[in-house]
């Protein structure tokens, strides 16, 4: 097992826990965190699989760099909307989430 494969397998674990978190967690802030965990997992898979061979492939690395910045922007937007939602309703859970 190479280091790159270890990164990719860790990424799979992170992605799966992120998916479970997005579905299970009602609190919006924690759900955004879970969503970021999913993204980090996907980035780790890309970077990890890119270095399976001796020379790392630069194309997935550049894609991950792009993805990180877009993820930051998406997170900021999600936080802004959560904040507005909280200011309007005083809640941090979406309605209809509590019919477990």
């Amino acid at each position, binding site marked *: 097992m190479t280091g790159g494969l270890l990164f990719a397998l860790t990424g799979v674990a992170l992605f799966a826990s992120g998916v479970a978190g997005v579905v299970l967690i009602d609190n919006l802030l924690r759900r955004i965190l879970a969503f970021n965990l999913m993204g980090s997992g996907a980035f780790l898979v890309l970077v990890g699989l890119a270095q399976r061979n001796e020379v790392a*492939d630069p194309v997935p690395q550049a894609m991950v760099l792009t993805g990180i910045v877009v993820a*930051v922007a998406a997170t900021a937007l999600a936080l*802004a909307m959560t904040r507005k939602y909280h200011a309007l309703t005083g809640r941090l859970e979406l309605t209809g989430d509590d019919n477990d």
Partner: protein
Amino acid sequence: MKRLAVTALATGFAVVLVEAMLNLGPAAIDLRIPVRENLAESGVSHAVTAVLLNYRGYDTLLEVAVLLLALVAVLTVTDEADVAFPHMEHPVLQTLARLATPLMTVVAVYLLWAGAFRPGGAFQAGSVLAAAAVLLHLVGLLPGWRSPRLPLRLGLVAGLLTFLAVATAMLARGALLEYPPSMAGGLILLIESVLTVSLALILAGLFLLLSRDEGPS
């Protein structure tokens, strides 16, 4: 019940993916060879920068547009509430931030310059600059931003506009974003320098425009 089902599904999904990765065959397309062979024409000697700003310039152009779009969207959902000044104006923190900010600026310029031949580039430099702005804000030296006025707006869009201008200027040569090899290095440096400023403003804005006291709802 739902918790159990979701956990089981996620675990199963992870197991299937791990299984697939452990038995992964060689990649169908190996991009490392064309990247390496064309590096001399790309204008930079670091492969990741070459991919970002030359081979796949479209990605980066659209990425900057996405960032700008996110900032505009953030602006539309924030109120005209009072701008916040964090209540953490400790003299030790302020002195530390004053010492760190010039160093972070130097690091940002170094990262921008290093992008041509080693890991670095506009995005890393921009995020270091934005982090410096957030640091100054958190210790109470820089107020949160109100809705941006003209100079700030120009700064925010300068990166995208420069990138677009270069792209359309290259259109005369037949393809969008196809730099002539002799000018590629200079053009990439120009784009990256303006992008650094714009990305720093956008990333700092995502934080500083949100940092307001909550108005009466």
